[in-house]
């Protein structure tokens, strides 16, 4: 991904994406999270995935993000769309 795409991704983050990005920064210990990033390629493991799912549930409500969804398409933007689509509380 080029710098230009990175920039625009930051600019167009949805509210859900921003909250998720903060969770990723905290869990993965890196400042540069963008909406096209893949959770596992960014350093996430099966264990950080468990923590992420728990934090998402606490923040957005139960059953808005399943482990299967996370493993199928672990990009930040996709996860945010799944949460919004499942009616996660903002």
């Amino acid at each position: 991904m080029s710098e230009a795409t990175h920039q625009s991704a930051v600019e167009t983050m949805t509210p859900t994406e921003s909250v998720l990005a903060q969770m990723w920064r905290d869990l993965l210990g890196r400042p540069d999270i963008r909406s096209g990033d893949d959770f596992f390629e960014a350093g996430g493991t099966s264990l950080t995935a468990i923590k992420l799912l728990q934090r998402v549930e606490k923040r957005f409500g139960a059953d808005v993000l399943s482990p299967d969804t996370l493993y199928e398409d672990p990009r930040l933007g996709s996860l945010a769309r799944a949460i919004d689509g499942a009616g996660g509380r903002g």
Partner: protein
Amino acid sequence: MKTEAPGAPAVACSEAALAVHREINRTTTPYPRDSSVVERFVHWVGRRPDAVAVVQEGRTLTYRELNRLANGLARELRDDGVRLGTPVAVCVARSPEMLVALVAVLKCGGTYVPVDPEWPDERLRAVLLDAGCDRVLSDRPGALAQRLDGAGCRVREVAERTLVPVDADPECPAGPDSVACINFTSGSTGRAKGVPILHRGIVRLVHGASYGPLDENSRVLQVTPVTFDIATWEIWAALLNGGTSVMYPAEFVQLSRLDRVIKEGGVNILLLTTALFNSVVDEAPEALETVATITSGGEAHSHRHMAKAVRTYGRGRVVNLYGPTECTCIATHYPVDEPPRQDAPLPIGRPIQNTRLYLLADDARRLCEPGETGEICLAGDGLAVGYLGRPDLTEAAFVHRDIAGVTERLYRTGDLGRLLPGGDVVFEGRRDDQVKINSFRIELGEITHHLNRHPLVQQSCVAVRDNRGDKSLVAFVVPAGPDASPDGFRQHLAAKLPRYMVPAQIHLCERFPLTPNGKIDRRALLTAHSSPATSGEFTR
């Protein structure tokens, strides 16, 4: 097992060293030493036929039902040629049917070999080949048969609708010295090592347990993937004690669901990998509040999580466990009754029942004094036979020693430890570059072995990044040409290694920094690449 091995090298020992080792090694406890796993299971079928053996999301099998289904499958397997010592791979998702498959294989005298469908084809085929399996039991036979095409392996379906109950127990040819299962663990030569586990090793693990109560009232959580040796404990701790296996229903763990499974299933004892234990303590500590005995192990514990656990759950409930696969899952236990002090190490404790531990120095020729650091060597009925098809590795790791006139067969763990004055052992790291990531045991050499075989790799090394307790693998490569890319290397590794062994980050470097004594300076590499995605054009 105390064995006759005339001429075993003698271990030098002082009176003080011998006294403290004798003290901690008084672990001999009566147990059904001469019974196989099958005999112990069938014993409970006779005694508690209507007790629930396994429950998963409201679905249950009683001991009688589980036994009848296993008899049916065992009859088919026997007709198909499974005999004493025949290895049969099991690739069935966590379910009552998985237990049926394991019991059925053992009833034929066979050896079950747990395999994971998530492994890449190359790994899967290598494990089947090394274990000598030409049969796989699977709940998704179609997909697997396609992947194993040409590997000389037949896939047989095991599903609720394919199982036929049979009343009569087949005569089981297996004894306590037969191989019950083979667990595979990382090997630095680039190939996973098979560790054959004896029936006696498993029976010893779950009888007369010093680390927690196990009896017919035990309701044991089963959440660990069956390819982990911890699952050996989870499954047989329930089924060989007349207790109930409470199975987590899905492949991936969700803590809110784990909470429900534990409470609805009335789980009263469990063994979590250190990594999962830490996650639960951090994110959902309430999930364990009803569990009487909370044990964890798999890698060095974290002080912070242990302290929080003891404060949350109270005294007499939290137990720190230690043990390699080669000693059938658990070797030592330490009840954590006080929050550990930051400045003092938390011990791995003392050997469990029918297990002995020696700290040895000078190539395992001298018994360490109290307080002296040495290699943790294990003895007793838990020891594996050796490594499958690797006499060289077996000879190096499994040795005979004469200790004060008694010949012991020892497993040299490669772990370092020392004895505290009270007799508890403290873990002090590794002799080599074996690491634990999320409780997966990984030889870093196995990863570099595969990296170095890529034509565009000139030199490589792998290190562990620790982000406040969350550990991940980072690889560094000096490329051999301009076309090298982290993505290319990642794909190369993903085709050969399980996902947990593929480094999350791969950095390209011009050269490696060296320490004063000429080794690759991993710490300097990690520091130089601490902010991964912004560290320059070489990094993706």
